[in-house]
């Protein structure tokens, strides 16, 4: 009863609200005079919805978007797990899964079948309702953010004026779900993990949002489409105007990615599930499909944050060079997204896990001051937009100095007295 | 009864639920949560009045008021977390009716 009411209510109000958005984006389509490949998804959609009566059109459009996102990211999730296992294996000098299907290509489906058929164990002392709700809520919340990501020139589920804010508001609820999982399990390791997760998520929420603010400030909009449009165009036809290619954007991108690593509980920030200390953290008392749901949520969160990073800093679906524009925009988006996701996997294979105090120190003493400075830097960048001639160089020099100087200074100050580690008996 | 009045009634009911929570529960955290409910009820009113105000008046005052109210609520939450922790450290529990040491 408790669970059903909010979901019903959410469904109605959100769908009504989506209706207005969907009609809005429908009008946007007709003006496109680009290539066939670019419009192909839209044509497909119109062909499908064309069979339905006019009054149900908006519903079909919304449902179609949801189904496509679910299918695409579900498949991406499946093969991302495989890719992660394979890549980690190669990095650690072992083959990785290669028995199921060609090169192990059927492994994800085997895993899925195994997860579904396993027994769903709920501890006797556990809070049954919350224990059930936690994974559901987690997956739902990590999917919500994908609605505002422009996957291509015309591929956007909901064109919100406050899209960036919506993304982070939707993401905020995942912390709650992690806590619910930890608390409902009635297991001290789970609870400890939940506490850790809370502290970590609160700490990194701040730099994450602060590194986004410069982008919003420079683009002058919270709408994801506007932000991508603001990064369009090229200098000399081959240097794109992506935010990552400015001093503040580069610094902001790096800090956004660090905070995103922490927000999605990925290594080296995976303290809540540090197996050497906490068994499996908040996942300890979960098994079967619920366990799989947690994994799904983690990968969805990772995909969502990476997609946001692509949108905010890497130019979204824009092509890197003018003459490469013939390749459809969603292909470019996919390439950038996959690059970032592979970066996530690579980092997991490379870096050791942080300690709790190092984790919070990194957030509060390093990232937060740097992001604040970066905000001032972006303000300078926007104020000095009119400088030209030799002043252009001065502008770059100042902006780079504001990024690099504090980085060196803070880094030195924080590592002062910490000698480089020596492994005497290793 | 029109829609605005319905909104106002809902917010009044929410306010009273918050009030009852704050008055009846002995746990300090719940008392403070009751206060948060009352704050939300007030915000509800602002938005309701803004939504149904006659066209052409007061462009976005209600929205801006609620934004500031939310910001103040965030500040308040930080302070009351500290208060609860300080209270807990002093009397080893967080029952509000026992926190009477400053009585004259």
């Amino acid at each position, binding site marked *: 009863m*408790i669970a059903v*009411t909010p979901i019903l*209510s959410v469904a*109605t*109000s*959100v769908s*009504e609200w989506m209706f*207005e958005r969907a009609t809005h984006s429908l009008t946007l389509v007709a003006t496109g005079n680009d290539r066939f490949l670019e419009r192909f998804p839209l044509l497909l959609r119109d062909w499908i919805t064309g069979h339905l009566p006019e009054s149900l059109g908006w519903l079909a459009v919304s449902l179609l978007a949801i189904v496509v996102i679910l299918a695409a990211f579900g498949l991406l999730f499946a093969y991302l797990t495989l890719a992660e296992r394979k890549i980690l294996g190669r990095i650690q000098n072992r083959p990785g899964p290669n028995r199921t299907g060609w090169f192990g290509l059927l492994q994800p489906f085997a895993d899925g079948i195994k997860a579904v058929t396993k027994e769903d164990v709920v501890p006797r002392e556990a809070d049954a309702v*919350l224990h059930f709700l936690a994974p559901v809520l987690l997956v739902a919340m990590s999917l919500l953010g994908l609605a505002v990501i422009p996957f291509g020139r015309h591929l956007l589920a909901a064109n919100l*004026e*406050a899209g960036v804010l*919506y993304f982070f*508001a939707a993401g905020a609820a995942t*912390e709650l779900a992690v806590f*619910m999982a930890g608390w409902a399990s009635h297991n001290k390791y789970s609870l400890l993990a939940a506490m850790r997760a*809370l502290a970590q*998520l609160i700490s990194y929420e701040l730099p994450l949002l602060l590194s986004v603010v410069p982008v919003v400030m420079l683009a002058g909009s*919270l709408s994801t489409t506007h932000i991508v449009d603001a990064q369009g165009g090229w200098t000399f036809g081959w240097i794109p105007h992506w935010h990552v290619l400015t001093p503040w954007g580069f610094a902001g991108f790096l800090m956004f990615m660090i905070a995103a690593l922490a927000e999605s509980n990925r290594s080296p920030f995976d303290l809540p599930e540090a197996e050497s200390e906490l068994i499996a953290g908040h996942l300890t008392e979960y098994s079967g499909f619920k366990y799989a749901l947690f994994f799904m949520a983690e990968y969805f969160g990772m995909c969502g944050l990476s997609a946001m990073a692509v949108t905010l800093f890497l130019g979204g679906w824009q092509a890197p060079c003018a003459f490469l524009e013939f390749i459809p925009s969603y292909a470019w988006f996919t390439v950038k997204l996959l690059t970032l996701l592979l970066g996530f996997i690579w980092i997991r294979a490379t870096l050791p896990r942080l300690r709790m105090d190092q984790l919070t120190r990194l957030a509060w003493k390093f990232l937060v001051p740097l992001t604040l400075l970066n905000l001032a830097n972006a303000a300078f960048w926007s104020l000095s937009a009119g400088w030209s001639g030799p002043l252009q160089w001065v502008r770059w020099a100042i902006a780079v100095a504001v990024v690099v100087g504090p980085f060196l200074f803070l880094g030195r100050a924080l590592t002062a007295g910490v000698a480089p580690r020596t492994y005497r008996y290793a | *009864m*029109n*829609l605005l009045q319905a909104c106002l*009634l809902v917010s009044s*009911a*929410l*306010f009273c*639920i*918050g*009030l*009852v*929570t704050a*008055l*009846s529960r*002995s746990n300090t*955290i*719940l008392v403070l*949560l009751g206060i948060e*409910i009352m704050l939300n009820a007030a*915000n*509800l009113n602002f*938005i309701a009045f*803004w*939504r149904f105000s*006659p066209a052409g008046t007061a*462009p976005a005052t*209600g*929205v*801006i008021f609620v*934004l500031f109210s939310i*910001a103040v609520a*965030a*500040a*308040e*939450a*930080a*302070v009351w*977390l500290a*208060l*609860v*922790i300080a209270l807990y450290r*002093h009397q080893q529990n967080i029952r509000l009716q026992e926190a009477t040491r400053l009585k004259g």
Partner: protein
Amino acid sequence: MNLSFALIAFLILASAVLAATRRDLIHSALLLVGNWLGVAFFYLWAGAEFVAFAQALVYVGAISMVVLFAVLLTRRTRTELPLLVATRDRVVSAVLGGLAVFGVLAVAVLRTPLDINPAKPAASVSMLSLGQQLMGPHAAAVLIVGVLLTVSLLGAVVLASSDADGKGEAP
């Protein structure tokens, strides 16, 4: 329109009532999060997108965390305390007081003739104009809120920090 309003109102009120009556503090807190989300949906229904997202971000993302932290940091055992007689008296008086207030408010609301303008478009305030208003006529208030947040954060740290020498504890 009215159906969704009724559902949202039901969500808001039901979650608030349940939160007020649960024994388990964690359940109360989580239900309250539901209540706050309901309020966010109400804002969305009313067309105040930005406020709705801000509400979700601040209440669901931040204040709920603070609540859960407070609960976990002050919890001693999971066993519930017995209901005391003094508590029962207080509950009764509280419910009576609450009903009285609600009665007064309801009468006041119902007796006031209120003109409404349902023809008003939903999202009448664009993000740009909102930002210009905040940075223009309300810039001073934004600054003051910033100062307030900083001061309250510092104050909270001072309040919650344990006294280093141990002498600051009350006797």
